[in-house]
């Protein structure tokens, strides 16, 4: 056993202490005038910047650390700050020190697999973030037009209904909107789980899940689900639960965006989920009202649109050209040497509506900023159609160009067919006699809707989706009872997976479904359908 020599200890301590009587420290200081409801007003700090972090060395929280705050209001005779910690320990007359740094967090590849708070502090008890980290500001201007490129690569969610009908591309912003309990988070989590297949490819998608104002137990559940499906290895969870202060909930999505930008600007792909932005807007409203900013519609401050637009604009597909990407606007100094082109940041913001009211203030704002929305409906959910996507009003404005070729071909008329089915379905409820063509269309629609159903945490690879859509389009399902569709799906995928593993692999890589393989798939499907029908009759 090695021994520690006392003279060594004193030598080290002395070395630590040599810096002791060096230069005097220079800092800017102000005084707390009033405090309450998580905000404080400060006298002094004449040179402080908006958005700067300040420290209150006299106000120590339960862990003995000084409370920190962020400057939001610069007024004529005082400075309004929001406090990140408890405001109980802050008293009138306490000193406030500038830190001279704008609100920021430490980001590096080490954040993957971790649960952190919006200021980058670990919450999972696994110690400091490992590896090299760089400091990135929470607020950063979105890349300009010349540093962007149209969306062109698909981001597979693994959900048949989304990948076929509302495809999402890398760099897109697709809103997930719906009432409470319609499976919004489930869509987001499935998408994260499905990114597992990309991890072995050349272009892995790293995921960031931002939980804003959610129950602590919900966040814990999500983390354990992600772990269970092996998705935590490439995911960061930024948590600002309901118990955290309003400023934390306000900055959490910006922290998620900053982490996403780290991957985006180093030439990689990232997916960020803001769950949910309505709660962020509520937190921002809380702060704004306490800071006495004038309230507008639904008591939200005037700049609540800017709050979401500046956040979502940061999702982008960056131009492939490294030279151009290096000249991007507002690159933080530490990030500059790592800049690379070709990266992307895809955003899936979540908005919770009240009683299906999409014309409320925040939903309309976010709908107008994003490149489309996935609308989840309570009635569909309750009638067993899960994911409860309302295909009629869900759109993807740019994802189509990113869709896999054969998928695009197969899903071309699908949306229209489904819309017609919905219309006829309502009509057929009157019970009048229907002609054969209408009945056929109803039959087909019913089966397509059934095929689009999918269990939670069971994302399907794109090649399997293509194979299923091929069968659906051929009309082979018309004779199969609706109740047997799910059984068919599992039998078919299993058989095809075993019999044609090479060809399926090729389909996954190239996205091309040639005619011979198409025929082979259909013949497999036919034999399984015959088998199922025979079983039904027996």
């Amino acid at each position, binding site marked *: 056993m090695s021994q520690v020599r006392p003279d060594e200890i004193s030598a080290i301590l002395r070395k*630590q*202490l040599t810096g*002791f*009587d060096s230069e*005097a*420290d*220079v*800092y*800017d*200081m*102000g005084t707390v*005038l009033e405090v309450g409801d998580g905000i404080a007003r400060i*006298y*002094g*700090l*004449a*040179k402080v910047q908006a958005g700067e972090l300040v420290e209150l*060395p006299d106000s120590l929280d339960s862990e003995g650390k000084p409370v920190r705050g962020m400057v939001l209001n610069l007024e*004529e*005779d*005082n400075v309004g700050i929001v406090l990140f910690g408890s405001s109980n320990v802050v008293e009138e007359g306490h000193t406030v020190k500038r830190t001279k740094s704008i609100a920021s967090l430490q980001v590096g590849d080490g954040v993957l697999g971790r649960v952190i708070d919006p200021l980058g502090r670990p919450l999972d008890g696994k110690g*400091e973030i490992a590896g090299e980290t760089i400091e990135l500001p929470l607020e950063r201007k979105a890349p300009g037009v010349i540093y962007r490129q149209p969306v062109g690569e698909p981001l597979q969610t693994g959900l048949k209904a989304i990948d076929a009908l509302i495809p999402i591309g890398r760099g897109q912003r697709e809103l997930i909107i719906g009432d409470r309990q319609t499976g919004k988070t489930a869509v987001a989590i499935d998408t994260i789980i499905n990114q597992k297949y990309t991890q072995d490819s050349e272009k892995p998608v790293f995921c960031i899940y931002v939980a804003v104002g959610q129950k602590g137990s919900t966040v814990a559940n999500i983390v354990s689900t992600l772990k269970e499906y092996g998705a935590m290895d490439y995911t960061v969870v930024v948590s600002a639960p309901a118990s955290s202060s309003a400023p934390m909930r306000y900055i959490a999505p910006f922290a998620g965006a900053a982490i996403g930008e780290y991957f985006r600007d180093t030439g990689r792909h990232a997916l960020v989920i803001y769950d949910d932005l309505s709660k962020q807007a509520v937190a921002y409203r809380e702060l704004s009202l306490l800071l006495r900013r004038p309230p507008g519609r639904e008591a939200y401050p005037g700049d609540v649109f800017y709050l979401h637009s500046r956040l979502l604009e940061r999702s982008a597909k960056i131009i492939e050209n490294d030279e151009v990407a290096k000249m991007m606007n507002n690159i933080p100094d530490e990030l500059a040497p790592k800049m690379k082109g070709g990266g992307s940041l895809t955003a899936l913001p979540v908005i919770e509506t009240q009683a299906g009211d999409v014309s409320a203030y925040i939903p309309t704002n976010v709908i107008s900023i994003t490149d489309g929305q996935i609308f989840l409906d309570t009635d569909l959910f309750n009638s067993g159609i899960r994911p409860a996507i309302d295909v009629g009003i869900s759109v993807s404005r740019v994802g189509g160009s990113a869709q896999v070729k054969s998928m695009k071909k197969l899903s071309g008329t699908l949306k229209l067919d489904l819309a017609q089915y919905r219309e006829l379905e309502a009509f057929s409820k009157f019970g009048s006699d229907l002609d054969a063509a209408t009945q056929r269309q109803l039959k087909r629609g019913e089966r397509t809707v059934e095929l689009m159903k999918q269990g939670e945490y069971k994302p399907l690879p794109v090649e399997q989706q293509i194979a299923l859509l091929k069968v659906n389009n051929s009309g082979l399902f018309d004779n199969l009872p609706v109740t047997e569709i799910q059984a068919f799906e599992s039998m078919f995928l299993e058989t095809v997976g075993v019999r044609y593993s090479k060809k399926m692999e090729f389909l996954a890589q190239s996205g091309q479904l040639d005619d011979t393989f198409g025929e082979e798939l259909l013949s497999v499907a036919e034999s399984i359908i015959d088998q199922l029908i025979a079983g039904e009759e027996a």
Partner: protein
Amino acid sequence: MVIKAARRYANAMLITAIEQKILEKIKDDMLLIKQAISDSSELSLFLKSPIIKKEVKKSALEAIFEGKIEELTSNLITILSNKGRENLLYGITLSFIELYHEHKNIIEVDVNSAFELKKDELASLKNKLEDATGKSVLLNVIINKDLIGGLTVRIADTVIDGSVKHKLNQLKIKFTTAVE
């Protein structure tokens, strides 16, 4: 914090005083009034009270300061009394002194020291601060045993901290963070 209106009155006073070439005298008046109000809580309450009639306030102020202040200053008191703004008086004196310092290129510097400073120490500190800021410095020395040793200098919002207390705190932070 000084109310905006007080700053306006103070500015008007300063300009008039410069015009009439009685700046130093007015400054002394202002210091006198400031001292009187800050020393007597009764007077400051009396001026702030909305119940007391302005005629009473006016005559009381005249009685207190009569013969001790310049005509210009007593005019100010009359105007304030007529407009019912006696409560601004203290703020005006503060603003006036601030503006006077600005005019004369003087800065006030708060020095917190753990021990009484000797005359030559004060002189050298003053010289150094004057060199650094380029302005003439008015030292406000406060003895504060809490600092343990050394001193802190505060110029407006900026603090130059050379106190032993601060150093020890920094050392404490350094040691505790190293442990984690």
